[in-house]
């Protein structure tokens, strides 16, 4: 028969070694039923308190008890994740930028700015992420949906309001200066323009 301190260590060990929640009935088997459910519950409470202030906590779930990492430590764990964070395509980022800076906008608005068709997948990606949603419909033929960014978008980007998005005045000014206004409007010469814009970005980033 184990003393309570040893029993607690056995409980802790079993819980740390299991990813699945362990029910009281499972845990009683550790001691070949020698400990009552009440005793085990008391030991679990003690264990939970003993783990206060650590990065791992003992939680009581529907299926039983389980040690799990505290959400606050997730950012650290994420850094270790060897797989490289995926990146959104340019289409997604540009669409998001348009919705963010020009909201509320319809898909047609987005297409006007981007100069290309916006695939449903792009919109769906941003909706699925919870970053944009439909806030209404424009009173126009087809009643197109109006998209705007959400609270979650601001939260996820660490912004308090849209006003904290990077200001664009200077950029547009510098572009106006750089690009002679009469120059043929884009699409045909898309490549060189792209390159210019990109090098401008590099310059300002440097």
């Amino acid at each position, binding site marked *: 028969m184990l003393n309570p301190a040893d029993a607690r260590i056995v409980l802790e060990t079993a819980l*740390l070694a299991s*990813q699945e929640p362990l029910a009281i009935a499972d845990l009683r088997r550790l001691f070949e039923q020698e400990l009552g459910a009440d005793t085990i519950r008391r030991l679990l409470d003690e264990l939970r308190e003993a783990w206060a202030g650590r990065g791992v906590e003992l939680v009581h779930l529907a299926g039983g008890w389980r*040690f*799990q*990492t505290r*959400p606050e430590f997730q950012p650290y*764990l994420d850094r270790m*994740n060897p797989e490289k*964070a995926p*990146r*959104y395509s340019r289409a997604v*980022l*540009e669409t*998001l*930028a*348009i919705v963010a*800076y*020009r*909201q*509320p906008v319809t*898909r047609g608005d987005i297409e006007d*700015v*981007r*100069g290309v068709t*916006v695939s*449903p997948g792009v*919109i769906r990606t941003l*909706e699925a992420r919870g970053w944009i*949603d*439909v*806030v*209404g*419909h*424009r*009173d126009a033929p087809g*009643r*197109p*949906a*109006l998209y*705007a*960014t959400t609270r979650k978008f601001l939260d996820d*980007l660490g*912004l308090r309001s*849209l*006003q904290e*998005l990077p*200001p*664009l005045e200077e*950029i*547009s000014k510098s*572009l*106006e200066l750089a*690009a002679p*206004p009469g120059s043929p*409007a*884009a699409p045909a010469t898309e490549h060189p*323009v*792209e390159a210019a*814009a990109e090098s401008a*970005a590099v310059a300002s980033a440097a």
Partner: protein
Amino acid sequence: MSLELVHSSAAPPPTVAKVRGQPLAELPADLYIPPDALEVFLDTFEGPLDLLLYLIRKANVDILDIPMARLTRQYLDYVEAMRRRNLELAAEYLVMAAMLMEIKSRLLLPRPRQAPEEELDPRAELVRRLLEYERMKLAGQRLDALPQRDRDFTAVEVWIEQSIVKRLPQVHAHDLENAWRVLLGRARLSRHHKVTRDELSVREHMAAILRRLAGAGFRAFTDLFEPWRGVAVLVVNFLALLELAREGLIEVTQAQAYAPIYVRLAGGEETPAAPAPGPGRD
């Protein structure tokens, strides 16, 4: 051996085999093997080398000075017994039998006079193999004696709540800035799409108002303002309403002068319970 995995809780040592349920604690001392035992007996060997090692160790002879005649005779007796019992005899046992007989006969040949030191003992290769096999047999036992994951210990793996969540791309505000910059450069739309902080704050309110009106039908004009947020916000909010009206996104109605003003989304009938994030509509 047909079984790759042996599930057994008891430590293997003394029981060599079971014959009709009776544990066979020791391998037979001499050549007499109870007929039923032969099969299990042979099953305890991993092959001819293992059987030879057993015979050598059993006889307590020096492995480096094997009495070939005796060993070969014993070995052949086993092989013969197996054949009499019609046991399926692995080819390796027969190959070994041939090898033993060859060694034995070479030992009987007169040795050449010249360069006796370079002449290898015909047993050398067999001894080398026996030693190497024994070494690996022991090494296998020692490896088995090491604490082994999942048998003798368990790797700790605390549940990570988020670990099952698919890793999502991170976007930073400056990514949007860059995206916008590229757009501007590409489409030369800077003149039309100059976005200022002030305009942005109006736009933010425009979206907020639309969100509040979604699915709500008419709402009182005054409901759309939050006076406690200060005058600046009130003004921006008002500008947002004007902009929404100008863009035809909302309808503002007033039954008569000084009557309450109502606002609803443009387009008459209620919008279908708005922010249903359905697929693109086209």
